């Protein structure tokens, strides 16, 4: 097993506030790592720093041993690092299928081949498979903006997997998804994890979801890692309980 993601001493300060303070961790190939913590504990900021959407104040990020600190999100994505968003981030005016083709097209060919090549970049079949996999088949031609919240959430996840990523960072995939769909989503994620050997890092507030999906969990509070371990270890950790319930 190899280390897919390595974060070393990552910090992010906004003025005088330390949103993320000296966070270090590693993620092994095939792992599903959960990151939990109270609101405002720096989870999303940590994601944005890893993904190059925010510039970290200090520290470094390595993917497969390769330094990626400061890379643009699009370059990082083409190295096989994908993400989903906490809030809905689909392309509302494009159809479901177009959303998925877009999610894959920049991984094939060159700018030139995308200009004069096939309109779908040869991705219609792959998009259809992804649509089937996430059970969005009846919605393939519809504009993404017309889908229900849960369906858009599934589409958002499907887009992240479209290019066969090596590492996927999921920011609250279960947020606002109803119970039936939640079980569905968990099964989909597990299947992709097993079949594609994709490695996941998941931020989640839904404890039941995160405990049942993840193999290891980090707990963040006030920008620091206060605990790490298996779901059962974390659940029993008094520091974690204190961080969530307060003093």
């Amino acid at each position: 097993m190899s280390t897919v993601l390595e974060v070393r001493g990552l910090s992010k300060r906004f003025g005088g506030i330390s949103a993320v303070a000296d966070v270090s961790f590693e993620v092994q190939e095939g792992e599903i790592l959960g990151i939990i913590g109270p609101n405002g504990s720096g989870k999303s900021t940590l994601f944005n720093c890893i993904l190059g959407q925010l510039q970290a104040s200090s520290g470094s990020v390595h993917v497969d041993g390769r330094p990626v600190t400061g890379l643009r999100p699009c370059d990082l994505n083409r190295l096989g690092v994908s993400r989903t968003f906490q809030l809905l981030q689909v392309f509302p005016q494009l159809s479901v299928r177009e959303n998925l083709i877009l999610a894959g097209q920049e991984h094939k060919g060159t700018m030139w081949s995308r200009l004069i090549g096939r309109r779908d970049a040869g991705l219609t079949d792959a998009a259809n498979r992804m649509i089937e996999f996430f059970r969005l088949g009846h919605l393939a031609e519809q504009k993404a903006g017309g889908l229900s919240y849960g369906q858009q959430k599934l589409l958002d996840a499907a887009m992240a997997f479209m290019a066969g990523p090596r590492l996927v960072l999921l920011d609250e995939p279960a947020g606002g998804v109803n119970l039936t769909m939640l079980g569905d989503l968990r099964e989909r994620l597990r299947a992709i994890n097993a079949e594609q050997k994709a490695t996941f890092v998941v931020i989640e507030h839904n404890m039941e979801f995160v405990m049942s999906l993840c193999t290891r969990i980090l707990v963040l509070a006030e920008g620091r890692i206060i605990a790490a371990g298996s779901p059962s270890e974390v659940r029993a950790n008094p520091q974690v309980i204190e961080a969530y319930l307060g003093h």
Partner: protein
Amino acid sequence: MKRWQCVALALVVAALIAAPFSLKPHGIYLLSMWAVMSIAAIGLNLTLGYAGQISLAQAAFVGIGAYCTAILTTMHGWPFPATFALGAVLCFVVGWLLGYPALRVQHHYLAFVTLAFTTLVFLVLRNEEWLTKGIYGIVGIPRPTLLGWSTKEPRDFYYLCLIVLGLVSWLIWHLVRSPWGRAFMALRENPVRASSLGVDTRRYTLMAFAIGSALGGVAGSLYAPLVEFIDPTPFTLALSLNLLLMVIVGGSGYFVGPFLGAIVSVLLPEWLRVAEGLYLIIYAVAVMALMAVCPSGLLGLAERLIRPAAKKGAP
């Protein structure tokens, strides 16, 4: 394309080819102007309608293209095809450079940056007399003879404009349907998400500006020999706003939008001339009413009328 779209296209093309036989020279001139302005508006529609980058610089690119052709054909004896190509390339490069501010500022801030550029180009055209002859303008811009075909007569030059419009339309039709077009739309709808999916937002933004601007240059290269005399006054902010109006009124982000917008902007004022002094007022009220009723333009209005029960929300 669907069948009815093919039929409609064939009818429109046939009508455009037949039109000059029943028109006086002034009518042919207006149709030619419609074709030229359509080309410039198609360019702006790519930048603004598809890629979502607001630009008030399109008039400047029409001006650059027009002056490029006017200066080189009248003073240096260049053949038209060469100046035409150079105008397009020049505007492509300048448009590319103008795209850099768009990487940092968006929306109305970007509008101001591009507005400043239009003003800058206008001042250069007016003040650099050694190059542009300033306010005296450039007279006697020749209409070209291409492969033995003289376009001196209005009808011939109209056909040249129509051919270029056809080529431009065909290219852009394919462009917006290629993965590039999809990336442009992604840029418009959600640049952050696009970037996280590997879309190089910087490169596509610059491309959207460069290609849109190059079409401004193409329009300018036709504008100069169409009018046969140019001075700096047509290339002010007013033309930029007029082109913006064409894109918005026609339907921003719709392929056919700029063609309709150019009809509204170039031909409608002429048709309203019967109302004499009132025509500008009628025109303004009509545009305001359209924008109030249907902000997505004529095509948005048509879409609403054809599909009144448009699917709203999810099943």
